[in-house]
């Protein structure tokens, strides 16, 4: 009630000099406008970034084999052959913080369909869990291969969008047969488009197939020899490949059936190139890392003082860096906007001081008829706040209009944020209180007699 009357009086006072009020509050208008625009554009940018990060597979962890070395000579990352599909299953079983895990083997070789050929970025042998880990479960077409395909080593695959474009010219690929190193694979599904990742790697340029198939039929070796093609084993299993000459010739003479019977190749336990896992949430990544390390160290019988024979890497590091960067940019711009608010506040203070001097007699009169110091203080404070809030309201309209303009003209993602508007209102009221306080306090300290006598 009292506040309402004071606010009305303040409005009336400001209306007496609308031009001056307008110019006084211009700093606040610009400041608040900038804050609103910054926050809306910033929110849009970080929203877009979050989407990108999610498309990369949020909460994803990668385990790779560690570095093998012999006699002080290191063979480089991924050269130990201790990581197995059984590790993957053990992790799924024993680590509650892990949502899902997929073993992976990689190959890179030519793919042929009809008279077209293409070498995709990667051919991944994995399990259906991979799609879940990568948040890629919704296919553009067809069905993913299933666990039985993995067990049986069936020759089925899922194509990325780029392959469909390159090999099928955009036609439906499902049900067709492609050849990977002369082994026929039936296309059962097509992945939904994902685009390039942040490293510029085309994520759609992949083929997914059961890891057993890739491992035993395509590469027949670990990833380190993946490109060197043509394993003896695959030839003997795949009778079809006899129809076509193998692209690369084997360096060594082929072993005859007798030779093989006499001197069987040692059966290698299946090592894999990496395990991809998804934690329950990004918050649980550290927990997951701890659990996984425990399980793997135990399974690989690593002594307490020996280093790991695997590398654990999480994407969270990368996403954290990226989101800190955008946050930093937004904060920087926000700081600039805040400076403009401070400048606006100084303008308010200046005019309020002038106003107090100008209205000294009015203050004296109000005191003579019974206004206490705090009544005068409140009146001038409310006046400053009303001035700032009016400026703030105009700033909100201006800033919002600006960000809409940016959205339509520059096609930037923009998010309207009620938080920004609430902040703007609070900040402009705050500026009014902070910068209006000194003039109001000065007014309240006037002596009524001297104020009445003031010319």
């Amino acid at each position, binding site marked *: 009630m009292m506040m309402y*009357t004071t606010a009305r009086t303040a409005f*009336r006072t400001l209306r*007496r000099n609308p031009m001056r009020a307008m110019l006084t509050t211009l700093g606040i208008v610009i400041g608040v406008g900038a804050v609103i625009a910054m926050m809306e554009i910033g929110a849009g940018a970080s929203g877009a970034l979050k989407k990108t990060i999610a498309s990369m597979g949020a909460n994803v962890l990668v385990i790779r084999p560690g570095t093998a070395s012999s006699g002080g000579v290191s063979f480089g990352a991924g050269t130990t052959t201790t990581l197995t599909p059984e590790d993957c299953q053990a992790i799924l079983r024993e680590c509650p913080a892990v949502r899902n895990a997929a073993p992976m083997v990689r190959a890179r070789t030519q793919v042929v369909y009809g008279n077209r050929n293409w070498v995709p970025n990667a051919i991944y042998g994995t399990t259906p869990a991979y799609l879940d880990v990568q948040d890629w479960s919704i296919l553009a077409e067809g069905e993913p291969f299933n666990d039985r395909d993995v067990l049986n080593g069936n020759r089925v695959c899922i194509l990325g969008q780029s392959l469909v474009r390159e090999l099928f010219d955009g036609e439906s690929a499902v049900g067709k047969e492609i050849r990977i190193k002369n082994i026929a694979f039936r296309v059962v599904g097509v992945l939904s488009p994902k685009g390039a990742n942040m490293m510029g790697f085309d994520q759609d340029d992949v083929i997914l197939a059961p890891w057993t198939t890739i491992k035993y039929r395509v590469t027949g070796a670990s990833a380190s020899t993946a490109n060197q093609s043509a394993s003896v084993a695959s030839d003997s299993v795949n009778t079809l490949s006899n129809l076509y000459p193998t692209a690369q010739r084997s360096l060594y003479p082929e072993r005859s059936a007798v030779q093989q019977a006499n001197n069987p190749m040692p059966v290698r336990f299946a090592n894999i190139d990496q395990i991809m896992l998804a934690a329950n949430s990004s918050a649980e990544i550290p927990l997951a890392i701890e659990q996984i390390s425990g399980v793997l160290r135990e399974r690989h019988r690593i002594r307490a003082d020996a280093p790991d024979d695997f590398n654990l890497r999480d994407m969270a590091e990368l996403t954290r860096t990226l989101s800190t960067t955008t946050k930093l940019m937004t904060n920087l711009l926000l700081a600039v906007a805040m400076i403009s608010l401070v400048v606006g506040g100084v303008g308010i203070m200046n005019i309020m001081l002038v106003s107090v001097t100008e209205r000294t*007699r009015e203050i004296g*009169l109000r005191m003579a*008829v*019974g206004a*206490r*110091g705090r009544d005068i203080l409140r009146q001038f404070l409310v006046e400053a706040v009303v001035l700032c809030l009016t400026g703030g309201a105009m700033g909100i309209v201006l800033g919002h209009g600006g960000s809409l303009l940016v959205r339509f003209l520059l096609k930037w993602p923009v998010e309207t944020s009620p938080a920004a508007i609430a902040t703007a209102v609070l900040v402009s009221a705050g500026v009014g209180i902070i910068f209006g306080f000194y003039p109001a306090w000065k007014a309240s300290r006037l002596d009524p007699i001297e104020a*009445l006598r003031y010319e």
Partner: protein
Amino acid sequence: MELITLRGIEKTYQMGDIAVPVLKGISLAIRQGELVALTGSSGSGKSTLMNILGCLDRPSAGEYWLEGQEVSQLSADERALLRNRKLGFVFQSFNLLARTSAIENVAMPLSYGAEHLSEREARERAAEMLSRVGLADRLDHHPAQLSGGQQQRVAIARALINRPPVLFADEPTGNLDSKTSEEVLQMFERLHTEDHITIIMVTHDPKVAGHANRVIRMDDGVIQGDAPPAAESKPKTTAGAP
């Protein structure tokens, strides 16, 4: 009943190291319903005394009893409340708020009162006050659209809005010509006879003092004479017009 009692009121201004005594022991009693004129040469301390009487200022020494309450030692806030409820002021230069209608000028003191009237009640009360000073048809005029006498009557209405028992006027006719002065003085007389409001006014003009029923003469911070107007103004007029 004594409305105002002063005992040995002193006021000394400190100008650097020098103490300037302005009021030098004023003792005075004013009863409910009196119309008092305060006269004296320029610089004799009339305005200073009025400020103390009006609780705008505090005396350096002495006692001030208002309606049986010692008010000389009250805090600034308590004095503000007292001014709002019990004391009305009329100034020489009207002191109306510019670009504000008459009715809003009159209603202004209500916003500092303890009563918390609604907007409508406040306007009604202000309109009633304005019609009492004969300005019922000027409610929405701004000061610039009113004559000097009308402005002073708006100021009187404002002083009376809280129905105070005392009205102080420091040279209320100082800025007015003789005809409009007469209007204002008749206003005072009516308030005095009809509403029994105690009025204390400072004036230089013997004719104005003639409207009072008691004239207090001050000289150099002390009271020189205190008598009904006939005894006070007659020797002056005879001396002033030989």
